[in-house]
């Protein structure tokens, strides 16, 4: 292994299909029109010296190092800003060019500290490289001149430093922040020699609008912006390409290593999901892997009131198997189950559901998608015939109108959010349907054409009203519908939505959305060109989550926005492998590939390979498991990499369910909140410590590669194998690739997937099979998977969670950029500097009515429970709506949420809880009790050596 050096072509690739032939240094080559001379030269292997150019941003032409000579043209133009022309004859190396470049380098070096030997960038410095490339041997201006202005080292960002003295004012960082990230946090302040990079209005990096995505650090050619990990460890010596374990975007990174120590994560340009970009989590927040709170030894205890006892792997596995056997013997086959992890790999998830179906002998398996995108699976399978989004991420580059519903991609899917912002800056129109004024409503150089700030819980009413406008104003794409959809069902649906009771005017009082604005938004989506819908948990986490997904699918079909790049229905999946965990058969009613367990033919296929009879009845879903536990019918649970006590709704009910069980097994990195109720703890491995695959929100299957040994001694898939074998259900795999081979053998949409294929192609999007050997970037191109697209009637049914005098406000929950899900990983990184606690956002009007000021402790109470946290007064929310995150167990926001859920899938209604907010002195008695109980539960007995 060695360090992967990606070729920097200097300027971005041209997508033109018109080709241009030219000559460079006597060689003839043909490149797409719009390609720069610099890039063309690099494509034939000639690297023209450069400093301000890099292919992650557009050409700038400021450093004057990349000069070339072109026959018939005067002067020496910059090759980065000069596009190729037919017949052009270019020389990249002449005596004049050498002299000019050397002169330029002399000027740069005269203004640069010559501390190369002790500089963190030593060995990875483009300035140093270019000095060598141009043959710089002397600096006529001497080395004692004044270095670049140095207002002082800025170490405020936890992950990188800013050293202005090393800045060459190439503006690569400024342009990366603008063009790649789209935040516009950086600028060049001052003029001439006084020019320096400035975050915001000469603020510190931490105090500015910088979102710490790392694009500026990546773009910097010197040590001006440097990872603190590089400063402390040194330059990496080898790298391994792997996939990020945060969020459903699935960014590909080079894990740059020194021995077994991770030095830094650098986004990989060839990553098809992220195209070389990253966010603060994937780029920097990996320190949790070596956090002191990580548990590295298996532990057991007889009851949750006892301290943990560290044991060997053998004892832990034998004890767990014995307990599950005992419980099944005493309470029956159906008394146990398990939860697969959307943070673990496809192979690990597949094995857990295999263990439950084959080893436990029932279908009591579920996954965290239950509480996020299960309505997506149901809604899209009913309408289109497949349980996944329709597009690849590249599709957004072809969108003309983006309809964003209940999603906040700049916080929750930041790298895709940046790609979306780029398209919006290019002119695409944006419609935001969200109770909150999310950043995308108005952010630098982006402003939504329409923001529909609907009342939480009224998604179906809003979308049906949009459909009403489409149908009654004759905006439907009848030709598409006639060809691709069931015409009779369309007519029934059209009659339904055309009913005046669904008009924007009729539902305005319910939704709070001005009718004229809604009509304009519907017209824009239907007539504005390629219309793409992106949505998130603001759609699914409602009692009508599945209905909303169907309403979205209807709208896309009715307007013909399906089956080509730029359009489609795109669920932004939450966790890194939540798509994969669903694909792998984690739902209690489905085998891998979304085939119902009652299908005799499918079941026979699995039974033949696994050698055991399988249950034909659906199993329990997570909330049903907890209900059954409270009822005394469900006694044992194997939880891999989930923290249901913190993430699932109605914390008290979850706790009651867990407390009623006799054996709860938690397999995780840390003693999470669920582990407070566990009897067995099996230490898991991070994504850095194992091989496997993740599947992202665009159905893209990507390799996860082991970059360091497992700190606990076993990868998660190995633990499941041990458990299965101890239960008498043999599993024998030497490597996850063998598990993938079994998945491919059993799953029609994966038959073409193998590790060899992934090595060869980098990644593939399922379906990947005989019909689509290279995968399927866009689905439903020639027809829907189910045949004819199916319109579903979507009657709005108000949630039963109602506001009233006791609970007059509506709470909605979500996440923030720097934290991830329950925070188990990100809370154990420096990301806490951006979000050290959950805050309750509320409108100034609501705050004033209650005498609450910014930063004050408030009590948040619902019919389910109450908690206290500090207030954040903001106009991002409409009056009457409050918002918080659920990243911190100290807050336990889910003690407030209810157990109302989606009618079809039981996905909890996190997004609508009637609450009251009042002033408070600090944490509630419940929070204090919970904290005490958690401390008590996490005790680990001192290790006692056995007597000789």
């Amino acid at each position, binding site marked *: 292994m060695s360090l992967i050096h990606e070729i920097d072509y200097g300027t971005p690739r041209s997508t033109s299909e018109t080709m241009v032939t030219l000559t460079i240094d006597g060689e003839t080559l043909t490149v797409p029109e719009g390609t720069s001379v610099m890039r063309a030269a690099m494509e034939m292997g000639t690297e023209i010296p450069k400093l301000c150019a890099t292919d992650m941003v557009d050409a700038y032409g400021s450093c004057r190092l990349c000069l070339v000579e072109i026959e018939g043209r005067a002067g020496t133009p910059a090759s980065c800003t000069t596009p190729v022309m037919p017949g052009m004859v270019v020389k990249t190396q002449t005596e004049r060019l050498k002299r000019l470049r050397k002169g330029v380098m002399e000027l740069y070096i005269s203004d640069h500290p010559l501390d190369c030997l002790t500089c963190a960038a030593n060995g990875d410095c483009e300035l140093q490289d270019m000095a060598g490339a141009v043959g710089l041997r002397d600096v006529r201006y001497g080395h004692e001149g004044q270095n670049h202005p140095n207002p002082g080292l800025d170490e405020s960002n936890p992950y990188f430093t800013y050293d202005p003295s090393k800045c060459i004012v190439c503006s690569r960082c400024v342009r990366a922040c603008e063009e790649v990230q789209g935040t516009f946090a950086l600028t060049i302040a001052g003029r001439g020699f006084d020019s320096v990079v400035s975050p915001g209005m000469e603020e510190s990096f931490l105090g500015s609008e910088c979102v710490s995505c790392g694009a500026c650090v990546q773009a910097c050619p010197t040590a001006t912006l440097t990872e603190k990990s590089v400063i402390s460890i040194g330059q990496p010596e080898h790298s391994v390409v792997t996939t990020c374990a945060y969020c459903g975007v699935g960014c590909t990174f080079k894990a740059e290593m020194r021995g077994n120590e991770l030095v830094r994560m650098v986004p990989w340009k060839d990553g098809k999901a992220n195209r070389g970009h990253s966010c603060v989590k994937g780029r920097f927040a990996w320190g949790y892997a070596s956090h002191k709170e990580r548990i590295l030894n298996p532990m057991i205890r007889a009851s949750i009131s006892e301290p943990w006892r560290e044991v060997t792997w053998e004892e832990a596995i034998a004890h767990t198997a014995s307990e599950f056997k005992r419980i099944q013997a005493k309470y029956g086959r159906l008394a146990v189950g398990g939860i697969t992890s959307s943070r673990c790999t496809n192979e690990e998830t597949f094995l857990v559901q295999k263990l439950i179906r084959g080893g436990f002998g029932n279908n009591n398996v579920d996954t965290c998608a239950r509480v996020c995108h299960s309505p997506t699976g149901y809604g899209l399978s009913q309408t289109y015939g497949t349980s996944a989004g329709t597009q690849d991420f590249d599709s957004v580059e072809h969108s003309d109108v983006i309809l964003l519903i209940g999603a906040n991609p700049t916080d929750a899917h930041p790298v895709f959010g940046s790609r979306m912002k780029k398209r919006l800056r290019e002119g695409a129109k944006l419609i935001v349907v969200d109770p909150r004024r999310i950043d995308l409503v108005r952010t630098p150089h982006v402003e939504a054409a329409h923001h529909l700030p609907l009342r939480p819980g009224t998604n179906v009413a809003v979308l049906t009203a949009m459909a009403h406008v489409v149908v009654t104003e004759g905006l439907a794409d009848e030709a598409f519908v006639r060809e691709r959809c069931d015409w009779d069902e369309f007519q029934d649906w059209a009659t339904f939505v055309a009913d005046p009771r669904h008009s924007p005017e009729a539902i305005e009082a319910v939704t709070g959305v001005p009718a004229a604005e809604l009509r304009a938004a519907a017209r824009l989506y239907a007539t504005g060109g390629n219309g793409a819908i992106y949505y998130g948990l603001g759609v699914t986490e409602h009692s009508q989550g599945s209905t909303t997904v169907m309403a979205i699918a209807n709208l896309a079909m009715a307007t013909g926005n399906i089956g080509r790049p730029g359009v489609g229905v795109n669920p932004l999946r939450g966790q890194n492998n939540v798509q994969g965990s669903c694909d792998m058969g984690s739902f209690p009613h489905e085998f891998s590939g979304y085939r119902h367990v009652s299908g005799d033919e499918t079941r026979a296929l699995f039974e033949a390979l696994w050698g055991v009879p399988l249950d034909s009845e659906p199993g329990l879903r997570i909330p049903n498991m907890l209900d*059954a536990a409270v009822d005394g019918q469900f006694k044992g649970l194997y939880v891999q990499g989930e923290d249901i006590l913190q993430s699932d709704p109605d914390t008290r*009910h979850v706790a009651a369910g867990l407390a009623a069980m006799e054996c709860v097994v938690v397999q995780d990195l840390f003693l999470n909140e669920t582990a407070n109720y566990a009897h067995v703890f099996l230490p898991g491995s991070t994504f850095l410590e194992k091989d496997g695959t993740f599947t992202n929100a665009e159905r893209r299957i990507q390799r996860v590669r082991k970059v360091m040994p497992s700190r606990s001694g076993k990868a998660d898939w190995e633990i499941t194998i041990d458990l299965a074998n101890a239960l008498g259900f043999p599993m024998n795999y030497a490597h996850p690739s063998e598990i993938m081979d079994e998945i491919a053998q059993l799953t029609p949409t994966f038959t073409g997937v193998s590790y060899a294929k992934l090595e060869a192609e980098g990644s593939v999007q399922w379906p990947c099979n005989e019909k689509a050997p290279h995968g399927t970037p866009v689905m439903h191109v020639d027809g829907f998977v189910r045949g004819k697209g199916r319109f579903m*009637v979507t009657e709005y049914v108000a949630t039963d969670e109602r506001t009233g005098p006791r609970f007059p406000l509506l709470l909605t929950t979500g996440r923030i950029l720097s934290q991830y899900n329950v925070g188990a990983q990100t809370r154990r990184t420096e990301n806490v500097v951006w979000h050290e606690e959950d805050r309750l956002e509320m409108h100034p009007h609501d705050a004033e009515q209650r005498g609450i000021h910014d930063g004050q402790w408030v009590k948040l109470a619902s019919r389910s429970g109450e908690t206290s946290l500090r207030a954040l007064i903001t106009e991002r929310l409409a009056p009457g709506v409050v918002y918080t995150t659920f990243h911190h167990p100290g807050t336990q926001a889910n003690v407030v949420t209810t157990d109302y859920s989606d009618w079809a899938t039981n996905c909890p209604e996190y997004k609508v809880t009637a609450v009251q907010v009042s002033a408070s002195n600090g944490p509630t008695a419940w929070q204090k009790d919970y904290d005490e109980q958690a401390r008590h539960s996490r005790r680990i007995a001192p290790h006692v050596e056995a007597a000789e």
Partner: protein
Amino acid sequence: MSSEGSATSEKLVYMANQIGKFFASQGADQAPAAIAEHLRKFWDPRMRAGILAHLESGGADLDPLVRQAVESLRATTAAR
């Protein structure tokens, strides 16, 4: 619903009626079969047994279409 609730009849009835409200738009002819099919595909046997037991004890609070669905579920369960 009570936050301390469990898989009691009350909760099952609530969930079944929720399902019924969606399929009601398919009309009285088709809705009961669609509701029953949903219960068969997504509810585990214990939950189905629970709603059948509730029907046996009078089926209080089941919406009419849902009651029909549960009755048809009872018929097919008995036939098996």
